[in-house]
């Protein structure tokens, strides 16, 4: 499908596509080489895409599957620039899944100027605070850890170490013994769930186990796409193995 598509394009267009795909020597390749290399990359990208999709998402994609996107740059349509920043110092946390949060931030250049003027050399850290209860002040956190960041960084994926905990991120400027919290984020909760903490109980109660299996596995035994379900199933499997061995 793609080869006919690419065949109909000018070398100039193929080079543009090659550049977008990250082919370093796109300008030097001839037409046939360009088509071969582009096809190879497109194939890999498709495989990547399909392999990371679960069934629902994979089929959902068909709805939008009209054409090969790389070949359809609309001519003359403006591509609007996005604001470089929103002139404020703020940090936000978004829970992506029970173990990962996406943290993005923005530092008002004026705040940086003030720090530079008063403190000279400084460093920045993203501090992740973990709580056992919601809405506590930062000082009451159960534990925290720092991620050094650079001035040009604007986001980070943060691994949440424990389930069933609340998390807040803050941006901290440091210089020598001095440090200042520039801003704090919203609070997020990393869910665990009843059975995550009671896998043994689940295993010992046949009715509960049957209900659980009937909810999260299909007819071929594949489980629902959820990291927590997978870890419960793995733990159940491990316990089964242990029992068999003993």
């Amino acid at each position, binding site marked *: 499908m793609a080869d006919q598509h690419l065949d109909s394009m000018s070398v100039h267009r193929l080079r543009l596509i090659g550049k977008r795909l990250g082919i370093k020597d796109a300008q030097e390749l001839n037409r046939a080489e360009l088509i071969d290399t582009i096809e190879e990359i497109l194939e890999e990208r498709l495989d990547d895409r399909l392999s990371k999709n679960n069934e629902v998402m994979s089929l*959902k994609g068909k*709805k939008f*599957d*009209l054409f090969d996107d790389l070949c359809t740059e609309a001519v003359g349509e403006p591509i609007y620039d996005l604001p470089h920043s929103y002139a404020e110092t703020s940090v*936000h946390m978004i829970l992506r899944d029970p173990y990962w949060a996406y943290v993005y931030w923005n530092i008002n250049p004026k705040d940086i100027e003030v720090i530079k003027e008063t403190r000279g050399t400084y460093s920045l850290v993203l501090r992740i605070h973990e709580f056992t209860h919601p809405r506590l002040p930062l000082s009451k956190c159960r534990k925290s850890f720092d991620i050094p960041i650079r001035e040009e960084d604007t986001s980070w994926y943060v691994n949440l170490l424990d389930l069933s905990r609340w998390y807040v991120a803050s941006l901290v400027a440091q210089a020598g013994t001095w440090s200042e919290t520039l801003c704090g984020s919203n609070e997020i909760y990393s869910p665990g*769930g009843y*059975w995550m903490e009671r896998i043994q109980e689940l295993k010992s109660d046949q009715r509960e186990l049957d*209900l659980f299996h009937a*909810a999260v596995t299909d007819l071929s035994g594949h489980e629902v796409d959820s990291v927590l379900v997978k870890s419960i199933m793995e733990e159940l499997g491990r316990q089964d193995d242990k029992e068999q061995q003993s």
Partner: protein
Amino acid sequence: MSKAKIGLVLHAHLPFVRHPEYPKFLEENWFFEAVTETYLPLIRMFNRLRRDEVPFRITLSLSPTLMTMLADNLLKERYVAHLERSIELGMKEVERTKGDPELNRLAVFYLSFFERTLFEYNDIYRRDLIKVFRDLEAVGSVSIITTAATHGFLPLYQEYPEAVQAQIEAALMTHVTHFRSKPKGFWLPDCGYYPGLEHILKRNDLGYFFTASHGVVLANHKAERGIFAPVKCPNGVHAFARSYELSQAIWSEQDGYPADYAYRDFYRDIGYDLDLEYIRPYIHEPQVRVFTGYKYYAISGKKGEKRLYNPEAAAQRVAEHARNFLYTLERSSKRTTQLVDREPYFVIPFDAELFGHWWFEGPDWLEQVIRGMASGDELVMCNPGEYLQEYPDNQELQPAFSSWGNDGYCSTWLDGSNDWIYRHIHGCIERMIELVDRFPNQDSLKKRFLDHAAREVLLMMGSDWPFIISNGTSMNYAERRIREHVHNFNIVYDNLCRNTVDTEWLTRTEKKYTIFPDIDYQIFSRHKRS
């Protein structure tokens, strides 16, 4: 004998794509293909069931963006023109293939399919599919619900309850405009749920929603009936969990029914297969090959030459697959009856566009399943509303954060390819809330500006854009849309901050984005959050 209850849910949604500034626009084909291959075939099926007095119950979620497009005159005109082009191509195909009887039979098959579609759309339904759905709801077979205004994936906006409220309020407004009454239930886009969302649903008089199965079984307490009965959130709103096991029989791209070798292949299409000069008038200008709907091959196998599609052989497989699904349902029902203390309720939701668009034979399969349930005595179709009337008392339980997306949470809509969008969307939401605070009681021109700002924020929140970016199809378009909505919103914001208004720009932009014509910017008010 106690019967298992089956809740079939079809969720129909497309993003708002309407480009009056171009004579033809590639991504409008999403809508045209879905009307031809999914919505009209489903309507045809519903009508056949009614004609034969087959009792059935289906919950149909129609997204506000889709409803708006179905009712839009420009898109109606363009859809008819699209069908006319398909018919013209069909005539050429019948001529081209006349030396090959098998191929010719398929060309005739598709030509008559498109002719029939045009006839029904124009002459039977008078281009008003919303009315058809309204009539189906009036007779009680189809229960119509709504979803978030632009299909925003709500867990990513939980920091902004004002924005979630706006998504729900604008959705209800659109629903009432088209259906004249409020829906009882709500489809959370991609089953995306976070604890606390039920408060906003309740505030909007919505009684139930649907979750992924792990949203219920991974709750903070035991779900006494697993996923085989709804649970009641502490505030009284009910959550119905999806039956993963039964959905998967159809969803699976590798093992599901739609992957059967006898079924029509989705990808092989003459838009890609035939000589460019021949097909050029029916693809996208200047020469972007697209699907034309003329697909002559069956899935056939994983490798090797494709066989020609044989509608009779496919129909035979449809019957076998429908029987197999009914058998699976009955078996699951028998097994589950021993686990729970009342008739189990199996909720089986699908994206409607699966049926017909990707799985061409899907509507026929669905029809046979429904007929099988109606003629048997072990399964009964039941909508969530009816279920709650029969069983108003359900276990109180707080469902857990979940979705039916990759990894069961947010990673489809929040990954390395699309995460950059959130700082801008969140930034615009914050500014929108600020505008509502600063301009609490505006009317006339300034209100028009503020209303349009609210419209732009809703449009940028659509889950389709990050999904498309992550999935790699139409990335250019999705990225452009996000950028355009952010840009447009910031024009309004800057204008209002400077106390100036560019009415020419506003009028032009309102004409382009005709969705939510009665929007009131106050839907983003922070007073609505509590």
